[in-house]
């Protein structure tokens, strides 16, 4: 099937060439980082994780979000999603690849990365994160590929695949749960030290993942002869609506506990993010934008009239995606490090090289995603015609 990714029109190759350009730029800057060290980033002794880990966290969510099309189809026999489950699975593959790349570019000694396997440490959540992420990648490759190939050949996929499909559902939940555990089990980091972190991560994942999928479906419909379907998009929209509401609800639960309990080490981070702390407030406008985008999206998604209009729906999905990206990509990681456990306020902002490397990783993800979706679309066009 892979050959399908190598047959395409001018637009397809133009887009791929553009992505290769972005990847090359990212790779060139990465070589610089590899030689100099992580000092070319905006990270510091106090804010020791930054943009890379933040985007990693966000994309784990997007990857997990794919399960929102898998579950209704395979578990509840919701037939309409049969048409698009493969898109969810392939989106998960591209997202997990980006996650793994973000971990690699964040390492101070990337050539030693395999020490994680050479000296397996079950007490470290990072070890488990490596296990669940790689496992999820493998599951989605095996499932997605075999199901699509069966569809192409006009057969039913092998029955051996069914247990793997069922396994992939809790596995999707596990990747984001374990990723949340990276943060929420650390003493002395009040912002993350909350049992609702994993549920909150999942809620935002189940909003952001399907929102991106809706946007991708709309792009596919526009650029190819394959229509993912109106019903499918509308069902996804309802999932996004529920998830984004739950996400905001969980956030409000957090706000209540933090401020009603009045414990300074928990309040300080929230204050830093939303009103500024000791005169440091660079994230304040972003956080309020994030909140505004999510509330705006809720209004558009909950109301059936606006949700059913696909143009408005696209706007809502962009809002969900941007809102959750700011929330997790900018606020969640910096917010946990500022103020530091010694109550120093050191602010963080990514540097230009850091942003270029980040874009390079996204370039790889979109390249993989485009190739995989190209295969899907070609198969769908073949089997229909």
């Amino acid at each position, binding site marked *: 099937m892979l050959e399908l990714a190598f047959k395409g029109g001018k637009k397809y190759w133009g887009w791929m060439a553009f992505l290769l350009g972005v990847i090359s730029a990212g790779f060139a800057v990465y070589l610089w980082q590899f030689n100099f060290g992580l000092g070319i980033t905006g990270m510091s002794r106090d804010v020791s994780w930054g943009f890379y880990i933040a985007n990693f966290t966000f994309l784990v969510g997007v990857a997990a979000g794919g399960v929102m099309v898998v579950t209704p189809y395979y578990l509840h026999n919701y037939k309409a999603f049969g048409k698009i489950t493969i898109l969810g699975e392939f989106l998960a593959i591209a997202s997990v690849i980006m996650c793994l790349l973000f971990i690699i570019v964040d390492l101070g000694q990337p050539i030693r990365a395999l020490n994680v396997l*050479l000296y397996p440490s079950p007490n470290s959540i990072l070890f488990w994160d490596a296990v669940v992420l790689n496992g999820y990648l493998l599951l989605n490759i095996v499932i997605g590929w075999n199901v699509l190939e069966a569809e192409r050949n006009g057969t039913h996929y092998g029955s051996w695949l069914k247990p793997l499909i069922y396994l992939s559902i809790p596995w999707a939940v596990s990747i984001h749960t374990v990723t949340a555990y990276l943060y929420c089990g*650390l003493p002395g980091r009040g912002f993350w030290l909350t049992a609702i972190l994993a549920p909150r991560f999942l809620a935002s994942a189940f909003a952001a993942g399907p929102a991106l999928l809706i946007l991708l479906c709309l792009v596919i419909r526009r650029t190819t002869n394959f229509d993912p379907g109106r019903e499918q998009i509308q069902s996804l929209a309802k999932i996004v609506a529920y998830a984004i509401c739950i996400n905001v609800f969980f956030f409000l639960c957090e706000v209540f506990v933090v401020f009603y309990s009045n414990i300074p080490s928990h309040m300080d981070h929230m204050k830093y993010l939303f009103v500024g702390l000791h005169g440091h407030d660079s994230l304040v406008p972003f956080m309020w934008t994030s909140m505004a985008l999510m509330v705006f999206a809720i209004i558009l998604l909950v109301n059936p009239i606006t949700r059913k209009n696909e143009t408005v729906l696209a706007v809502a999905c962009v809002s969900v995606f941007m809102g959750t990206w700011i929330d997790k990509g900018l606020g969640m990681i910096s917010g946990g490090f500022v103020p530091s456990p010694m109550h120093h306020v050191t602010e963080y902002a990514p540097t230009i090289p850091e942003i270029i490397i980040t874009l390079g990783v996204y370039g790889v993800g979109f390249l993989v995603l485009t190739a995989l979706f190209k295969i899907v679309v070609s198969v769908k066009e073949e089997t229909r015609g």
Partner: protein
Amino acid sequence: MESSRRKFLKIAGASAVAGLGAHSILNALASEEQAETVEIKIGPKALHAKNWGMVIDTRKLTTSADLKPIIDACNKIHNIPIKLENKNHEIKWIWEEKYQHAFPVLSGNKYANDRVTKLPFLVLCNHCENPPCVRACPTQATFKRKSDGIVMMDFHRCIGCRFCMAACPYGSRSFNFRDPRPFIEHESKDFPTRMKGVVEKCNFCAERLAVGKQPACVEASKGALVFGDLRDPDSKIRKVLKENYTIRRKQELGTEPAVYYIV
């Protein structure tokens, strides 16, 4: 290079013959690498303890000038790159903090006595009994030495993920954001310099204990720092702890720091 490849082939061949899987090959390679780790050779005059601990007597350390020789002693023997100007990239093993940073929770007391709140405090790795950094490390590059409770680092195994820095509630860990070597003032040959991309921190001078010396900071402190075995009821440190009321940083987190402060 050639010889190590030959060795690898030999091990691989032998394992294949013996019917052992890839696992044993990996183990053999791993143990070869482990031989190069920083495990310190214990000399005949070495100082021993079941659980090393430290008491910092802040009554004897009232000004920054009192702290400076102690900090300098550590910086010098451990090749700390003190010439690094970018504050974001700072490497610190033992350093001075204000009261409100060393004890952020206690500093909530607005009416506390001026003598204490204006004091400069020495802070360093607490060599916790339950170290969150060791729990977080995915490669055991940071570990708690079973023999004496020192939380140590293997600079050669660290992958630079910085999970330990997120885990440490005391800000005791530093990361080499760039090659530190050009920023060392006088390179000491008695302790390894580090490379870019690894985390480091205070090691309670494990390399000095191994040859019968007290930690450098203790030696330079003129008696303001007391170092000894917390598990030995007859040790000097236990006597000091018995006679003076001491506090520890962020005791509420259950990490059980081994560094105590007399205030």
